[in-house]
């Protein structure tokens, strides 16, 4: 495997390594965050490392289940379990966004646990309530929330964030987004140079590394692109729940699909929108209009985005994967199916990090009715 891809894959999988290295060099300074609506620019600008927290599908989420109840998205229950177990190493703070209901409940649980059970020694927690209605009233509110977050991060860092550093951080994270978009193009190309699983892992790596390091590795990866092997499969666009681990992508691609694009924020959606200027006003708008994600956007906005993104990817089919207790995707699906006009399947109430039994059948049916592309497939079809 190419060197940059290997390093990125390693960081996307062992999500603690970069934070541990950073902690050693800087004597701490790692801030855990939950949800793509957290403006990591403030954390970077304060000289701290933003580490996006993820769950672990194979591990029982006993503590998370106790505090959150079993009726909530299992990914959030897993993150809480891991936080309580210290899986992410020592954190100097946690920033939670309102990217979905489960994140908000997770924030409330952390806040209350800190209040009633100090013995747990949880790090300080801050909610950044980024909202998304397309109105000026919402922009004003998001700006106020960013002001609040800035003050909290300054307290955690023990020094003020100067405007110059913030502008630089905005520029740096936008540069990262631009590179991610170019990396995403590698799996859209025909033939694809990256699989969906590889791309997801690369994106995940950029949410644990310092932004400069992530940028450098992506640049390197792009120079290696011509030497990457070609991948084949039925080209599908994946909608529905977000994926904080690679398990489901692996399962999908093992069954002959190639995930060429998605509309969740551990994937393409993370880098879709740029910041119009290196200012706080533009940053607030960037996060307000970020999306459209399933739990926050209207059915109409989602369907329109899915249609155009699936077309840009050259997708042959649409797969909606809805995790158990993730309620939004099921409501979006009928309009998405109609808007894309692609052969499609809804995999409902799926277990965390896996495909249910019926899912495999539905996917096999989808694969039968959709022709894979690529030289090998064409050769097979000709035989």
């Amino acid at each position, binding site marked *: 495997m190419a060197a940059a891809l290997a390093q990125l894959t390693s960081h996307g999988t062992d999500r603690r390594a970069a934070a541990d290295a950073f902690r050693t060099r800087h004597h701490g300074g790692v801030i855990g965050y939950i949800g793509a609506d957290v403006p990591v620019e403030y954390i970077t600008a304060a000289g701290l490392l933003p580490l996006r927290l993820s769950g672990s599908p194979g591990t029982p989420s006993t503590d998370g289940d106790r505090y959150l109840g079993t009726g909530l998205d299992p990914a959030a229950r897993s993150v809480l379990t891991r936080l309580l177990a210290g899986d992410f190493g020592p954190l100097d703070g946690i920033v939670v966004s309102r990217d979905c209901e489960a994140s908000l409940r997770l924030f*409330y649980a952390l806040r209350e646990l800190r209040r009633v059970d100090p013995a747990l020694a949880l790090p300080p927690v801050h909610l950044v309530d980024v909202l998304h209605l397309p109105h*000026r009233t919402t922009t004003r509110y998001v700006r106020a929330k960013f002001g609040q977050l800035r003050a909290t991060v300054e307290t955690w860092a023990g020094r003020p964030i100067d405007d110059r550093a913030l502008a630089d951080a905005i520029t740096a994270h936008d540069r990262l987004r631009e590179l991610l978009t170019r990396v995403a193009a590698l799996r859209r190309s025909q033939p694809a140079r990256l699989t969906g699983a590889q791309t997801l892992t690369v994106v995940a790596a950029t949410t644990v590394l310092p932004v400069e390091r992530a940028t450098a590795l992506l640049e390197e990866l792009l120079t290696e692109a011509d030497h990457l092997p070609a991948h084949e499969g039925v080209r599908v666009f994946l909608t529905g729940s977000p994926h904080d681990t690679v398990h489901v992508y692996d399962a999908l691609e093992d069954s002959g699909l190639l995930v060429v694009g998605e509309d969740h924020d551990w994937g393409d959606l993370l880098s879709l929108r740029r910041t119009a200027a290196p200012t706080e006003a533009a940053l607030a708008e960037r996060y307000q209009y970020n999306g459209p994600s399933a739990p926050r956007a209207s059915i109409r906005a989602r369907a329109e985005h899915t249609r155009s993104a699936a077309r840009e990817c050259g997708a042959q089919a649409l797969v909606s994967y809805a995790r158990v207790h993730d309620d939004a995707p099921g409501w979006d699906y009928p309009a998405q199916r109609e808007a894309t006009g692609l052969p499609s399947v809804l995999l409902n109430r799926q277990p965390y990090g896996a495909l249910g039994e019926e899912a495999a059948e539905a996917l096999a049916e989808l694969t039968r009715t959709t022709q894979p592309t690529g030289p090998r497939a064409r050769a097979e079809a000709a035989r």
Partner: protein
Amino acid sequence: MSAARLASASAATAHQRQWFADLREEVADGGPLALVNADAPQEIFRAMGIPYVVNQWWSSIVTAKRRAQDYLGLLRERGYPDDSEQYSSIPLASAFDPDPANAPWGGLPRPTIVLAETTGDASRKIFDIWDTQPGVSFYPLESAAENDVPARWWELMPRDWERAVGSDRLDLMTGELEGLIRFLEQTTGRVFSETRFTEVMALVNEQQEWNRRTRDLIARARPCPLPVNDSIPSVMIPQWHRGTAWARDAARAFHDEVAERVSTGTSVCPEERARLMWIGRGLWFDLDFYRRFEESHGAVFVWSMYLAIAADGYLRYGDDPLRALAARFAAFSDQLYTPPWSAEWYVKEARHHGVDGVVHLVSEDARGSYFTTRALKAAGIPVLELHADNVDTRSADGDTLTRTVGDWLDRHVLAGD
């Protein structure tokens, strides 16, 4: 002396019938109609004379008439989930009813505007679908959340709501409500009068003050003067009509009726040995359940959230009525479901009512339940958690549920008697 049905409950139910019939006529003549979520600000519609139906109330009517499954089927036919947010989505299915003439109460007329906060992940999607129906507009409101809040909200809310809710949320919702007023002025041609609106807000506060007195009466009364589920229509129907003189007077009539019972010593269960609190939504499929432990254990349910949240959750005074309205709704459900507010409030209410134990119905969608149970236990109050998934199956076999509660009463509530 045992208690007959409350006259205020019968009066409220009769009023509701007449009101709905009148509303259907008004809308048939081409007037506007709003469908409004329960936790969204309705007072603006009241002040502008735009009739409205509360989404969750209509849902309860459909359910009571045993049509919920038909309606969920209509959603399923269109590819929509039938297993998510049913309480909000059932009224949407009314729009697809092939036989509206046979719908409950003559059917829900088609609204011209739907208003809801964008709470949760899916509830706004239901209103997105409303928005695609001919002649219907969805006006969404943000549902905002605060990083840090003072715990004892019930002391602050009536007058010091700015501090309890936080200025950012209030700025946001006030701005959104100004937009709503302009939208309604333009689409209905009706007028928003600040004077009229101030009157509406004053009537709401008067009504909730009556509810507060009633709650306090019941909290102090020994023995308990009325069964807990009997108070629900007397509180909730006027709540849907808040901002009218009728509703204010209905709340007062309910109060007077309870006061009368207290003074004559009317009781649910004269041999009251244990006072119980019921936390969670009502057990609609088995309302008699609440009374099942009176003869066997002398145990009486004295508390449910409906009267208590009316008493503590709505009062908002202040010189700026629109901001006061924003303060009523910008954090409404936090009062019931978000710790520390929810947890501390249940403890305060448990103490206020002198309860000996709490039965806590924990739904699968358990918002803050762990922390509520924990806070009550930390305050020394026995709690029995019933999990909704087993309650639904147990209801087929009501005996098991009865036995569970009975055992808990014997072991944890009455053991020290």
